């Protein structure tokens, strides 16, 4: 009996061992690298040389020109059709909004922001989150949907502006706060939505809030401690009435009642103190001349010009200042005394024309691209229209005057991209005919600040365009019509591609020379943010936030999509050098 028990025990133990052994053979442990990339300090030299930084996307517009031009060509016209999702990151934020972040990538770490000011660092190879910072918002009001367009990176810090008008410096390795300064009073309507710009030992940011009676400004802060270095007011304390221009600089009649405006000057002499003039877009910068170029938004109040007589300088203008002192250099006002909400919102871009002239280009809500001499601000050319015009600068009537562009433009905040070899600027536009009327529809709660003098024309189709403008001639090179008005941004690459997203979730690649659609991916929410490109381990990636746009009603989400070619290379193409 005892022996039987021993045999039984031994057999059982043998069976158990065998089973365990067989189980161990089947179990495979999936191991993924858990080592977080180490932050690289972003030096001034790197920022100055950002254009040649193949691996990185170091600032909002990639480099100081804001051209959003990538020298990478591994993904090109012959193989883009094979592009696939390399990874996807979902921000998991609890409150969605207009997702406009333009990722910054520094040696394998991607920095992102969300509409309500969460900042995060993500492994740019895998999408694994490294840290997040959630800004505790105080009082804030904002126009046009909560949004944030990204960070600035300098040293081992990243910087974010917030809806409650704070500028926050975060440790790029950990996300801990280095410093946090209140830039302006959010209860007075001030807010920050743009991506800051790092220049040497400063970080520069411009204020938003033109719908709320602010006095706009752009300001430089010390990177090290957040102390103010200089401030430039976008609304001057003297001379904001300008010359009472009866026409735009290009001669379009503004239909103003100059006599009435001059008569009202005494009553509204202090209107400049709440003149508006917010900044929506990150500036461009010329390190040679040290000049900073930016656009200034609408005057305040947005619709009622009778209480702000004069040209309302420098609203609706491209402005140049000295980046080291904030001193004024020149301005070019696209729309004096704007009452149509056709302010300048798309970021400026620095280009060198074929004749060697350094120029500043900007795609306006007016439906034209302006090309100005970067040194003097003198107009070189205004492009052929990239958006249709009807009753341009008409005054409203009781019956409603149909007008184009509508209140969203033209080009809205969307970042343009430039292919410097072709000399093309790629512009996203909206075709939204609107009625401009003096009598309102019944009051609708919550829509008072959307420039509601314009009403969409019932039953009329709205759509968009991606347009290539030849900056050297001002002519359209090609034009692709899209099903919905376009809002977001473009990316141009040395692979002769232009990437952009649509509100219905499509993320597209076009041939930069012809506009032919070569590839499209459906992301499930509006891809209404500017795409970027970077390279790691010899592999090129394209990244874009696809989280929609509140103002246009495009589906909201929280995903950042990153695409690459399959590991085999996906067809013919050039490996990135």
């Amino acid at each position, binding site marked *: 009996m005892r022996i039987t028990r021993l045999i039984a025990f031994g057999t059982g133990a043998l069976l158990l061992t065998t089973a365990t052994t067989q189980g161990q053979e089947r179990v495979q442990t999936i191991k993924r690298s858990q080592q977080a990339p180490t932050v690289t300090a972003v030096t001034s030299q790197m920022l100055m040389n950002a254009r040649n930084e193949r691996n990185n996307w170091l600032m909002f517009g990639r480099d100081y020109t804001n051209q959003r031009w990538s020298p990478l060509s591994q993904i090109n016209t012959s193989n883009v059709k094979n592009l696939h999702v390399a990874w996807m990151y979902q921000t998991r934020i609890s409150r969605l909004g207009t997702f406009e972040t333009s990722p910054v990538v520094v040696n394998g770490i991607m920095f992102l922001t969300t509409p309500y000011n969460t900042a995060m660092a993500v492994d740019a190879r895998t999408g694994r989150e490294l840290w997040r910072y959630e800004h505790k918002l105080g009082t804030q009001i904002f126009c046009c949907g909560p949004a944030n367009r990204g960070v600035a990176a300098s040293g081992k810090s990243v910087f974010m502006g917030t809806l409650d008008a704070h500028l926050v410096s975060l440790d790029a390795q950990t996300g801990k706060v280095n410093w946090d300064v209140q830039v302006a009073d959010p209860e007075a309507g001030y807010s920050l939505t743009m991506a800051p710009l790092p220049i040497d030992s400063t970080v520069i940011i411009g204020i938003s809030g033109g719908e709320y009676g602010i006095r706009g400004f752009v300001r430089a802060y010390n990177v090290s401690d957040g102390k103010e270095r200089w401030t430039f007011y976008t609304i001057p304390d003297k001379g904001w009435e300008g010359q009472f221009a009866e026409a735009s600089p290009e001669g379009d009649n503004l239909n103003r009642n100059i006599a009435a405006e001059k008569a009202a000057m005494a009553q509204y002499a202090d209107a400049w103190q709440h003149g508006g003039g917010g900044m929506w877009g990150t500036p461009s910068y010329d390190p040679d001349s040290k000049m900073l170029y930016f656009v200034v938004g609408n005057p305040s109040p947005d619709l009622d010009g009778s209480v702000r007589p004069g040209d309302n300088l420098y609203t609706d203008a491209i402005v140049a200042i000295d980046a080291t002192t904030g001193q004024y250099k020149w301005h070019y006002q696209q729309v004096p005394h704007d009452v149509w909400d056709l302010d300048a919102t798309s970021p400026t871009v620095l280009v060198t024309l074929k004749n060697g002239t350094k120029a500043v280009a900007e795609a306006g809500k007016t439906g034209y691209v302006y090309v100005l001499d970067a040194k003097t601000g003198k107009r070189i050319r205004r492009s052929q229209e990239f958006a249709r015009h009807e009753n341009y600068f008409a005054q409203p009537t009781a019956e409603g005057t149909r007008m184009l562009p509508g209140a969203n433009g033209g080009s809205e905040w969307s970042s343009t991209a430039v292919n410097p070899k072709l000399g093309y600027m790629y512009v996203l536009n909206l075709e939204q005919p609107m009625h401009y009327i003096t009598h309102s529809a019944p009051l609708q709660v919550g829509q*008072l600040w959307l420039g509601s003098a314009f009403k969409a024309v019932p039953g009329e189709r709205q759509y968009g365009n991606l347009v290539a403008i030849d900056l050297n001639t001002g002519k359209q090179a090609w034009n692709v019509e899209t099903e919905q008005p376009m809002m977001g941004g473009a990316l141009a690459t040395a692979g002769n591609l232009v990437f952009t997203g649509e509100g219905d979730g499509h993320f597209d690649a076009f041939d930069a020379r012809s506009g032919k659609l070569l590839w499209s991916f459906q992301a499930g929410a509006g891809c209404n943010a500017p795409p970027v490109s970077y390279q790691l381990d010899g592999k090129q990636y394209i990244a874009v936030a696809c989280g929609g746009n509140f103002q246009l009603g495009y589906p909201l989400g929280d995903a950042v999509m990153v695409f690459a070619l399959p590991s085999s290379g996906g067809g013919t193409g050039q490996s990135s050098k």
Partner: protein
Amino acid sequence: MDMGTVWRGRRAKALLIVGGVLVCAVSLASARQQPRHPLQLTGEDWRQLSPKEKEVYLSGFVAGAAAEQVRAVATRAGKAADSGAVSSGAIETLRSHAALHYRFAPSVYAAQLDDYYWWTDRRVVPILDVMITINKAMLQQQFDGNP
């Protein structure tokens, strides 16, 4: 009746009529000069105000709303008679916690009112009603992100 009597009669009648018109005119003028209750002011009144007057009006509005909010808080807490609970200090406590109902600067409300009353057919709407609507919309925006 001799003509002099008739003439004196007609003259008296004319004087009476003229006098009556004058009295009416004076009455109307007096009526226009009588200050109206602030609750009765509309967009037509708003557009007559100078920028300084708008600022003063809105400053008073915001201060008054804050005082009433503090009083209501104190009353709910059974401390309506407590001078400390109903005071500028109590208002400041609410303000520092972003708890004031009308928490935005007069310039913010002014810009919104200017835009609101740009519409001609809205000018009959009382300023008070518009302030309530504007403020509600801005507060709502902070919670759900919907302008």
